[in-house]
């Protein structure tokens, strides 16, 4: 993680070192709009984040000034586009502390990044009787690809369960989970369903000590806290641009160079080859051998602007802001009668995600009513059906925060919940 500018030069940082949220909000045009006649209170950031003008303008600027296909163009536009596209790769590498831009593969989203590993690495390394360890708290995108792979290969999945505070139940770790047959540990960093931060660094270290390959789903961590792949020690890290102020349609797979080198391509065709004859082809170098076809050039370039923006804010400050919001929101929500809040009570062990239920209101009714008050939350299973089954509920209501959210918005949320309860009581 590179250092952000010192606060006295940085317009986004208050003299006390905290984020200047009022200044940040000026950069997000969508926060000016009203919903059902009221100001928008956007608390669905775990699903996708809003975009600052810097990102919107970078996207528009590409199409207005230097739209061209990349990598083999001789002309000026193509060179500029190629440079900007590859510059984002370098920015991503710096942002997550990767040793080289060549460890960064652009895909469509986190789901595709995980599927890439399941196909290109998994199919070559997982065999009958092998074991893949995942947790019951995974987003479906870090569960279903492994279930398919296991089914296809006759391998087995072991699940790390969940305790009463929705933390991982690590009783018996490591030997109850990691066996001589374990080939892969695939684990989310922060639960999108209930917000728990998992002790990923410790789990990864143990797995790697045993020679097990590790994948971390960073979709809910990379946007919200400092994440350094070399510190984390994982072999693969997957995350999405759209949850971190960037555009939709761009995902990132970080992979350790040696692993990426020995993997076969996922998709094949244009862009990913070095030489093609009628008899066959030679693959391009990493990471390009994993980027078949014309990639999402414009959105990757705009993603570069999102990373610049986050770097300017500083990820330590982003995390501190979310901790403050979460602490305040937990304190206020806990005062509501009969509310059930999921996840660990300690804010240091959770991301900016609060999942809850009220006994008398179904989450969908609550979602509709809060929307009427301009408050956008998510309701349902959050692509966590096994976790919801474990909690014994069909779904939850989930509020999730980001850099532009304020304590006043938490107050509006709490007020709106009170109004919703009064209506359905």
């Amino acid at each position, binding site marked *: 993680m590179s250092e952000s500018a010192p606060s006295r030069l940085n317009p986004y940082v208050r003299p006390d070192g905290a984020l200047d949220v009022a200044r940040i909000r000026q950069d997000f045009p969508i926060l000016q709009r009203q919903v059902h006649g009221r100001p928008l209170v956007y608390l669905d950031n775990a699903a996708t984040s809003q975009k600052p003008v810097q990102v919107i303008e970078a996207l528009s600027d590409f199409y207005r000034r230097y739209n061209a296909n990349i990598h083999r163009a001789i002309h000026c536009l193509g060179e500029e586009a190629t440079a900007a596209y590859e510059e984002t790769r370098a920015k991503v590498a710096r942002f997550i502390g990767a040793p080289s831009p060549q460890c960064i593969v652009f895909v469509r989203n986190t789901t595709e990044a995980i599927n890439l590993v399941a196909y290109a690495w998994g199919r070559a390394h997982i065999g009958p009787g092998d074991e893949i360890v995942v947790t019951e708290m995974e987003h479906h995108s870090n569960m279903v690809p492994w279930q398919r792979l296991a089914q296809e290969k006759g391998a087995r999945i072991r699940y790390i369960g969940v305790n009463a505070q929705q933390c991982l139940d690590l009783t018996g770790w490591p030997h109850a989970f990691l066996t001589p047959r374990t080939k892969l540990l695939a684990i989310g960093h922060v639960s999108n369903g209930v917000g728990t931060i998992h002790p990923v660094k410790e789990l990864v270290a143990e797995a790697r000590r045993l020679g097990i390959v590790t994948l971390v789903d960073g979709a809910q961590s990379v946007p919200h806290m400092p994440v350094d792949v070399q510190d984390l020690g994982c072999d693969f890290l997957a995350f999405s641009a759209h949850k971190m102020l960037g555009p939709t349609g761009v995902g990132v797979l970080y992979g350790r160079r040696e692993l990426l080198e020995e993997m076969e391509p996922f998709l094949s065709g244009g862009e990913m080859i070095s030489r093609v004859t009628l008899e066959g082809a030679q693959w391009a170098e990493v990471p390009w051998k994993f980027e078949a076809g014309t990639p999402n050039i414009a959105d990757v370039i705009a993603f570069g602007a999102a990373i610049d923006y986050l770097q300017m804010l500083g990820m330590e400050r982003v995390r501190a802001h979310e901790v403050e919001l979460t602490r305040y929101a937990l304190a206020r929500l806990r005062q509501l009668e009969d509310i059930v809040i999921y996840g660990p009570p300690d804010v240091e062990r959770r991301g900016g995600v609060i999942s809850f239920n009220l006994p008398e209101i179904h989450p969908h*009714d609550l979602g509709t009513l809060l929307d*009427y008050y301009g408050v956008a939350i998510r309701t349902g*299973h959050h692509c966590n*059906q096994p976790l919801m089954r474990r909690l014994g509920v069909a*779904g939850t209501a989930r509020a999730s925060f980001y850099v532009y959210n304020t304590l006043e918005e938490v107050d509006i949320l709490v007020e709106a919940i009170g109004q919703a309860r009064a*209506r359905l009581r």
Partner: protein
Amino acid sequence: MLDREELRRQEDALDELYRDIILEHYRHPRNRGSLPSPTVVKEGDNPLCGDEVRLELLVEDGVIRDVRYQGQGCSISQASASMLTEAVRGLTLQEALDLYQRFHRLMIGDEAVDTTDLGDLEALMGVRRFPVRVKCATLAWHVLEEALKELGVVKR
């Protein structure tokens, strides 16, 4: 800064969605439970939101003599199921299918459908202003359609 006119329109829409009669069915469901020897039992769910409805019909001489439902989910899905049980009791199977078709067409926004004599079901028409909630209101009715299909009732 707040547009009072707009707020009133929104309030009206919300009142339409959560009409008292809907909340009344939700809090005090009719015909909830099961039958000792049902002619047909069907279940349906909406896996994306977790709503579930199980319907049991007792059919004699082509007439729905008794009906029960069980389920869980949002107020709209459960109130709609409760209303359904009241609406179809005593109907012939063909009449029940007709009612299903009328209700379904109404919920998907077909303006040409006759809305008279809908009884409590009329209260569900407010759901049409909330497109994402229409599937909640129609869940129990799709289960009814499945049950009628199993009984060999076909569209006239």
